[in-house]
């Protein structure tokens, strides 16, 4: 049986991709951002997912204003890198997992989530920047990736609740897939930022920290947040954080926060990143001594890979 072992969220700021492509990651400004992902790279290298599902949004690359699908699942075998106006980013093409993607499509559509399916689609920085942050710059990405593009460009995006419930349906779909696959799901975008209008440059760290706290412990509260609140408090473009709730909905109710990182700014945006792990029966080690004391033994175990990473705040 396939299973989701963990969820990762990460900003997907295009300037992060440009810093990688132009070899500027060593500059103090960018070092501050990339250092925050060093432990995450170690973590995912140990988890070794068989497949990643990456929830992201397209930025006028694959989709223009001609067609605006709310949820578009990539069912292709390969996703070329989009030319966003400066030539395609020099990163490997993304290999899909058509078999699992088709299974997910069939399962969630019958669960009443009416997806658009994309058998041909290019992917932009929204998807490739988080892959770089987690996997570095390999010649080939280490595992197949299933893109799930969400409309957050045209208002209204899907509600946080709808996103969370889609995550639930994806979890069900994966758990009904007969092959033994380890899946990690990414929610990308955010955190607070506004890049349009006279209010551009807005950052709300207080909102962001509360969002991260609730994402781990009280995601249901986030599912009730109206779009107006996202836009007013976290910036017009900050509303894309609803995508993180798809990731959260695909995890168990109770998760272990493996790692967290937050820094301001990367270009115009607050960078937020969190790793949440399902508590699996397969792992051998307890999450922490504190957890051992208050939880039954079967509840506190998690992926051994997560053990060396301490929860940190910055």
């Amino acid at each position: 049986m396939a299973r989701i072992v963990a969820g990762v969220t990460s900003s997907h700021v295009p300037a992060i991709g440009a810093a990688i492509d132009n070899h500027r990651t060593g500059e103090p400004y960018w070092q501050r951002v990339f250092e925050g992902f060093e432990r995450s790279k170690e973590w995912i290298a140990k988890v070794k997912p068989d497949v990643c599902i990456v929830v992201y949004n397209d930025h006028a690359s694959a989709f223009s204003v001609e067609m605006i699908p709310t949820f578009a699942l990539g069912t292709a075998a390969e996703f070329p890198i989009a030319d966003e106006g400066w030539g395609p980013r020099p990163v490997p093409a993304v290999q899909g997992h058509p078999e699992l993607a088709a299974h997910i499509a069939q399962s969630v559509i019958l669960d009443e989530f009416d997806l658009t399916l994309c058998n041909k689609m290019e992917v932009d920085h929204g998807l490739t920047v988080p892959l770089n942050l987690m996997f570095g710059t390999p010649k080939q990405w280490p595992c197949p990736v299933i893109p799930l593009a969400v409309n957050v460009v045209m208002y209204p995006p899907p509600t946080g609740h709808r996103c969370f419930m889609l995550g639930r349906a994806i979890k069900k779909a994966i758990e009904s897939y007969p092959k033994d696959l380890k899946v990690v799901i990414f929610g990308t975008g955010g955190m607070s930022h506004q890049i349009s209008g006279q209010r551009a440059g807005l950052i709300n760290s207080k909102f962001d920290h509360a969002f991260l706290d609730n994402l781990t412990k009280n995601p249901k509260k986030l599912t009730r947040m109206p779009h107006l609140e996202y836009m007013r408090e976290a910036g017009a473009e900050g509303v894309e954080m609803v995508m993180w709730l798809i990731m959260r909905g695909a995890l168990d109710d109770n998760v272990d926060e493996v790692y967290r990182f937050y820094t301001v700014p990367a270009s115009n945006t607050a960078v937020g990143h969190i790793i949440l792990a399902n508590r699996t029966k397969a792992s051998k080690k307890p999450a922490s001594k504190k957890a051992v004391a208050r939880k039954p033994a079967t509840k506190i175990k998690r992926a051994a890979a997560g053990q060396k990473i301490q929860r940190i705040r910055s």
Partner: protein
Amino acid sequence: MAAKTIAEKDYDDIPGTYVFDADRSRRGFHLNMFCMSLLKAENRKAFKDNEAKYLDERFSLLTPEQREAILKRQYNRMLELGGNIYFTAKLGATDGHPFQHLAALMTGSTQQDYADLMLRGGRPVEGNRSKSGKADKLKAATSKPVSKGNKRRG
């Protein structure tokens, strides 16, 4: 009472913000498709060679206001007329500008001042929640009380 032709939108109370909704998407279709055309190098060249000709020949359905906003690089006006920032940013890129140049134009700042603002932690949300001030008052009322001595002065 006469029915309003356009419904009031709660997000219109957010200052300095043009929410790209289905109405703007409809009105800005040709403006955004023009921006989208700039993804191709040959189109960027053709546009730069003769901007007015490029717009008149290929995007004749632009409104005069949209056409003027494009030619004059009025980025807020483009948003007001249905442009979306992810699309209009392609025009900025065609001009060879980094994104923070556009942000500076939209916020009436210089690129350096805008970059410094971001390094200081960005534009604060306090005082920037609503045009009417309602949202700020509401937020203050629901937040923990702050003693008068610690109150920051704007």
